[in-house]
């Protein structure tokens, strides 16, 4: 029994956790951007899926991961632009728009997989050029160091950089202050001369950029193929992690790490023949619990603040 557990919990879990959390992290960053402007971007799943497809296709035909990345970002931005027009210009419910985009992405990538790449299910080919990996030569002698620090895909460490960059942008710059004010009280922002509509539109586009990157990482960094519905709920996990962190990049990142951790542990348990479902449930249950407790505490505090007896 304990032998089994050491197969599950050992130093390689760090690498596995970071790796598994990165697709969710990019999805989370996508959501945080729009959430700060009070737009719940449910469509991140669809944006990622299209980005992933675009990246694989362009990489396969051009042999350049940079071009592939650029194409994924472009397609992500285009989709988010459509969402922005529908939601902001034509007042469509963002929730419906997001769900429709997810559905559209699933259908269109399936369709194009068949028509452009001539296959169904999944597409893998040696000609697909993945995103570069960072190999640190000095770790070669030591298996543990190598596992902990080396052989990450470029976008894995970059994701962590993005977390802190976004945090800095949101809380230390003019751009971030204005963005947050738009999300928290649009009327106050409007009376301060901040163009609310433009700000929301702008941030939707940025979120498309990040969402496109998320897709490219998923198909060219995390794996090296495209499969139907390969996002498989990771976009929603990103939404969950964003809720977990209350829209704060650093706290949401912690949420992503919990998702990555339980995902890695779950798959190892499964290979040992143990039911992984209860481990896999943890991040979802934890997020619900965090939300409920935070709001329960807030309600209790409010009640105390309103009391006439103190």
């Amino acid at each position, binding site marked *: 029994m304990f032998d089994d557990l050491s197969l599950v919990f050992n130093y390689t879990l760090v690498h596995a956790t970071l790796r598994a959390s990165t697709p969710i992290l990019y999805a989370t960053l996508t959501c945080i951007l729009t959430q700060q402007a009070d737009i719940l971007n449910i469509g991140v799943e669809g944006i990622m899926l299209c980005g992933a497809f675009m990246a694989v296709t362009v990489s396969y035909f051009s042999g350049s991961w940079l071009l592939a990345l650029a194409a994924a970002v472009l397609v992500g931005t285009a989709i988010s632009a459509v969402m922005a027009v529908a939601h902001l210009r034509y007042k469509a419910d963002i929730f419906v728009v997001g769900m429709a985009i997810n559905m559209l992405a699933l259908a269109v990538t399936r369709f194009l997989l068949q028509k452009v790449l001539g296959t169904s299910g999944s597409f893998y080919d040696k000609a697909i050029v993945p995103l570069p990996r960072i190999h640190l030569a000095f770790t070669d002698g030591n298996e543990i160091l190598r596992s902990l620090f080396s052989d990450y895909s470029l976008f894995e460490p970059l994701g962590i950089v993005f977390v802190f960059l976004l945090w800095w942008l949101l809380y*230390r*710059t*003019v*751009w971030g*202050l*204005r963005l*947050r*004010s738009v999300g*928290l*009280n649009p*009327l*106050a*922002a*409007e*009376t*301060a*001369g*901040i163009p609310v509509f433009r700000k929301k539109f702008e941030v939707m586009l940025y979120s498309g950029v990040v969402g496109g990157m998320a897709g490219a990482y998923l198909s060219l960094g995390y794996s090296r193929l495209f499969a139907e519905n390969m996002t498989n709920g990771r976009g929603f996990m990103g939404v969950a992690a964003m809720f977990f962190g209350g829209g704060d990049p650093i706290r949401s990142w912690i949420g992503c790490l919990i998702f990555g951790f339980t995902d890695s542990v779950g798959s190892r348990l499964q290979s040992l023949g143990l039911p992984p479902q209860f481990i896999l449930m943890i991040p979802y249950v934890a997020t619900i619990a965090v939300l409920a407790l935070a709001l329960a505490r807030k309600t209790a505090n409010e*009640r105390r603040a*309103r*009391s*006439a*007896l103190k």
Partner: protein
Amino acid sequence: MTEPIVTMEAIVKNFPNVRAVDGGRFDLWSGEVHALIGENGAGKSTMMKTLYGLYEPEEGRITVRGRTFETLTPTEAIALGIGMVHQEFMLVRELTVLENVILGFEPRKGGGRIDFDEAEARVRRFVDDYGLHIRLHKKVNEISVGEAQRVEIIKALYRGADILILDEPTAVLTPQETSRLFEILRTLKADGKSIVFITHKLREVMALSDRVTVMRQGRHIATLEASATSIPELARLMVGRDVFLGVQPSNRHGSGEPVLTVEDIYVPGDKELSKLRGVSLELRRGEVLGVAGIDGNGQSELVEAIAGLRPVEKGRILLQGREIQNRTPLEVRAAGLAHIPEDRNQRGLNRSMSIEENLIATVFRKRPLSLGPMLVPAALRRFAERLIAAFDIRPPRPEVAVANLSGGNAQKVVVAREIDADADVLLAAQPTRGVDVGSIENIRRELVRACEKGTAILLVSADLEEILSLSDRIAVMYEGKITGFLEAGEADEETLGLFMTGGAVRA
């Protein structure tokens, strides 16, 4: 100076179903305090919001410092030196005071970073110059209303405003805070700022302003020198006629036995000053007990606590001898209470439902309106038609959505429902707020009629004239306590004002 700094001419602004401003006119001279007065719904705020660029007027011209505009945006207005302190503060509650002040006009250092040191230094200057004490690093949701208002004023000054619009600034303030605000405004005026002061409190107008513009039903009525007019004249211009709206109390006497007794209750409140701390009162059969006070001194909390909508932390409420504190609204209603709430849109009505569905809200569980879980459409219709006729609700069509009714008719729906309950006690909170003159008379007559049939009424109103004309006795609330009871005969606006501002205390 031969030209006013601001001139607004022939302004027209429509909202769905209403023309809020109809040929509005206004001018402002440099360095004056100009009061803009009128009843609720007279179009005062709408008028000023077009000047600040929040609303686009359909017609009219706005001239600021010699430049004429058809419409403005907030950005243009700010650039022209116009600042507005809204009735609902335009503050982001989750951000700090400093962040709120600089929002949109942040001092920067390299890389798009905010220079918080520079920001603080700049804001401090205004704090010191005008004695506007605020704590810069608190979040807005942690500060008091008075402080939030000072933040709004600083925000406007920080943006370079020398035309300052204040929309009913004293409605939410304690008397101390009000006098402090007036001092600040006088300092600002001495410094050359021009101030527009929206209010309906005439005493404040006389105390502070140089000129007065009166609006009524969206129209410009008059512009006068404050020194050349009087409170009665302004009141007449505001209301539009000399008539006394009161229905003279007929020979009622509050000698009946008490039906509602409130014993030393403590009730949580939204604001510090509106928490109830030790309120007691007695309401007798067949009397109208008026509760006077400045908005936000605990009147709403008192009404909601009695109605079962707010918890009571200590003390008892007895209705016909039965304890009703901390019971559900349904139980309290069953015990014999009806309630006209102060805000018909938040509580009184379901705007997306029809007149009929709003009228049946408290009785739909009873036969013949329903059989078990089944509603009986024909019975509902008969019930609704009876009330629509009895209370003259227009249009007299039960299926019309309440959202399409005028303020007065919407309020009549609430009044009809609550008076028809034929309760022992009726709580009437601001029963004629935001209602046209015709409906006011109608509603007041219904209240008196209910009282004559034996219902005891607790009347809460910010309108002293309403209190004086309807009540048999008057209780005055101030900072969550009752500061005095007066008999109808011995009360006048003067004495009430004294009690309402904490100037006198009598048990």
